[in-house]
C-alpha cells in the first residue's frame, strides 16, 4: 500500500498546566491524500487547531505531543530533529490562519514575508524568490503583484490580505496545506472566492486540511470530514455522507443546529448545554451530558471509533477508495 500524503495515528497532545497534564488532543487519527481536502469540524475548544499544530509541531510553549505518529509522505515527523522539521514546515506543509491581519507581520512588507522562508530553506536566491512571490501573488488573484509586493499587510483589504496569506503559505509549493478557518473572518461574498482559490491548489494536487466549524464550507470544499469533540474524533465520513446522514449524536446535533436558507420550516433543534471544560471532562462519552440518547453505558464507558456497519457490512463508504465511515458512539455501534 502506498503512503498517504499525511497520515496521523493516535496523536495525543497535552497541555502542561500547574494543575497537571491536560489532554487536549486524544488519540486522533486522520489521513489526507494528495489533491484531497479533509475537513476537521467542531466547535471552539474541540482541539481541531491543536491537532494540526501538533502535526506542524508549532505548539504553545506549554503543550507537548504525548504520543502517536504523524507521517508525511511516509516520513515520521514526531521524531524528526527540529532542524529537519523546520525544512518540513513552510516547505512541505503550508499553513493558512483564520485572520490574516494577525498572522501577517504588520511591520514587514509582503515581499519579506513571502520570500524569507524560501531563503531559509535554501530553495532559491533572492531574485528568484521575488519572482516566485510575485507569481504566487498573481496566482491568488492579487492584481498588480509587482506593485503589491512592496506594500504592508495593513494596506490591503481584508480579502486581499487573506489571499496574500495563502500566497505566503503556497509560495514554496508545499504538498500539504493546513487551513485553519480561512474564511471565518471574511465577508460571505469573499468566502467563496477564497475557497475557489484554494480549490485550484487542490486541483493541482495539494492535500488540504480545512479546519472549520461551518458545515457549509466543509460540504462545499472538502471530500472527507472528521468531527471532533472534546479532543477526540467522534465521527469520520465523506462530507456529503456525513451531512446526508450524520450518525453520531453530536454530528446530528451540529447539523440540526445549522441554519440554512430555505430551511425555515425545519425546526431548530440545538444541542443543549455547552462543550465541556477539558479539565473536567465528563466520564464516559464526553458528549453524554448533552446527549438526548445517553444511557448509563455512555456515562461510564467510552466507545472507540468504530466503522459503521449495517449487519456487519461496512456502511456508507460508497465511491472513493479509502473513504471510511466511523463513529464513536455506543448507540450508533449498537443500533447501526
Amino acid at each position, binding site marked *: 500500500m502506498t503512503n498517504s500524503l499525511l497520515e496521523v495515528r493516535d496523536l495525543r497532545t497535552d497541555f502542561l498546566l500547574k494543575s497537571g497534564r491536560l489532554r487536549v488532543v486524544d488519540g486522533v487519527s486522520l489521513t489526507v491524500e494528495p489533491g484531497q481536502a479533509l475537513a476537521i469540524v467542531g*466547535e471552539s475548544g474541540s482541539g481541531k487547531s491543536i491537532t494540526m499544530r501538533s502535526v506542524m509541531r508549532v505548539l504553545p510553549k506549554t503543550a507537548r505531543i504525548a504520543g502517536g505518529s504523524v507521517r508525511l509522505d511516509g516520513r515520521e515527523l514526531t521524531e524528526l530533529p527540529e532542524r529537519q522539521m523546520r525544512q518540513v514546515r513552510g516547505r512541505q506543509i503550508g499553513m493558512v490562519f483564520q485572520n490574516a491581519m494577525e498572522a501577517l507581520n504588520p511591520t514587514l512588507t509582503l515581499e519579506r514575508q513571502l520570500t524569507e522562508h524560501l531563503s531559509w530553506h535554501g530553495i532559491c536566491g533572492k531574485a528568484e524568490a521575488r519572482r516566485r512571490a510575485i507569481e504566487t501573488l498573481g496566482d491568488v488573484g492579487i492584481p498588480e503583484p509587482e506593485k503589491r509586493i512592496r506594500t504592508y499587510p495593513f494596506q490591503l483589504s481584508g480579502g486581499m490580505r487573506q489571499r496574500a496569506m495563502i500566497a505566503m503559505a503556497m509560495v514554496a509549493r508545499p504538498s500539504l496545506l493546513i487551513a485553519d478557518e480561512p474564511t471565518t473572518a471574511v465577508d*460571505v461574498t469573499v468566502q*467563496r472566492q477564497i475557497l475557489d482559490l484554494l480549490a485550484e491548489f487542490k486541483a493541482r494536487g495539494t492535500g488540504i486540511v480545512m479546519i472549520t466549524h461551518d458545515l*457549509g464550507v466543509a460540504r462545499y470544499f472538502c471530500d472527507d470530514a472528521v468531527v471532533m469533540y472534546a479532543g477526540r474524533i467522534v465521527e469520520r465520513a465523506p462530507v456529503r455522507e456525513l451531512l446526508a446522514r450524520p450518525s453520531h449524536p453530536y454530528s446530528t446535533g451540529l447539523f440540526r443546529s445549522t*441554519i440554512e436558507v430555505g430551511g425555515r420550516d425545519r425546526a*431548530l433543534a440545538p444541542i*443543549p448545554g455547552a462543550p465541556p471544560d477539558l479539565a473536567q471532562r465528563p466520564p464516559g462519552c464526553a458528549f453524554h451530558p448533552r446527549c438526548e440518547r445517553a444511557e448509563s453505558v455512555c456515562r461510564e464507558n467510552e466507545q472507540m471509533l468504530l466503522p459503521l456497519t449495517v449487519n456487519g457490512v461496512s456502511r456508507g463508504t460508497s465511491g472513493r477508495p479509502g473513504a471510511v465511515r466511523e463513529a464513536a458512539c455506543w448507540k450508533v455501534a449498537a443500533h447501526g
Partner: protein
Amino acid sequence: MVDVSDVAEPVTTERAASERPVIAAEHVDKVFNTRAGEVHAVRDVSLAVHSGQTLGLVGESGSGKSTMARLLMGLLPPTSGTVRLDGLDLSTVRGARLRQLRSQMQMVFQNPFGSLLPHYSAAANVAEPLRLHKRGDKAWRRERAVELLDLVGVNRRFVDHYPRQFSGGQQQRIAIARALALEPRLLVCDEPTSSLDVSIQAQVLVLLEELRSRLGLTVVFISHNLAVVERFADRVTVMCMGQVVESAPTEALFGAPRHPYTEKLLAAILPVTSDPLPQPDISWRSSPDQPSALVEVAPGHEVRES
C-alpha cells in the same frame, strides 16, 4: 411564507401599514469625521418597523448596518434625517428624557462578554437597567433579575457569578435578560449570534424566537448571515455601502431577489444540504456616489436601481 403560528399576536401587512411604526428612520444620513477624512457610513436610509414585526437588516462588513442600529437606538445622532420612536423625533429629546425613552428600546450586542459589565454579577447586570430607571427597591430588582435570568435559562444557582465565569452562550442569555428587564417594546439585535459557536448560536436563536412570540416584541435583527435572517425576520432590508439596495418581505426577497447585490449575497451562501447557487455572472459594484432611487417593484418590495 410567514410562520404565524408561533407569533402571539399575528400581524398582517395591511394592519401594520395602517399603524404608526414603532421605530422609523426617514432619510437618515450619518457621516463620521475621522483622521482619514469623512466616512459616509449611512446614506439616505429609510425604514420602518411596525409593532410586533421583525425587520432583518443584512449586509457585509462596512455596509453601515451596525451604525444604523445605533442610529435607531438614538446612541448616535444622525447627520441628517430623523429617527422616530412612536412618532417622536429622537433628535428633539435629550438628557434625562432621552434616557427615559431608552427604557422602551433595548439592544443586544454582538459580543456578549464585551457588553456585560465585567465587575457586576449576572443578577446585578440584569438589575442595572431597573436601577437606572429607578424601578422598585433593591430586593425587588434582584428578584426580578433572577426571574428574568430564569426566563432566559440561566440557573438561579449562578446568578451571583460574574460574566467572565459564563460561557459565551450563557453570557448572551444574560445580555438578553438585561435587554428585557425594562420590558421594552423594541429590541435591536446586532449580530447577536455571530460570535457564538454553531450549537450555541442555535440555542440563542431559539430563545429569541420564543421570547419574541411570548412577549410580542418588535425586533430589528441585524446579521450578515442570510439564513438566520430568513428564519427570523418578517421583512428584510439589504444594505450595501451605507445604502439600502433592496427591501422586501422575507419570502419575496429570498424567493425572487431583484437586486444584483442581493443575488450575489444569496449565491455566496454555502448550504449544508444542497449545493450552492451558481455564482451570478454579474460584476455589480456599488457606486453610492451616483444617486439612484429605490423603486417599488411589488407591494412592499423596493429595489435600488442599478
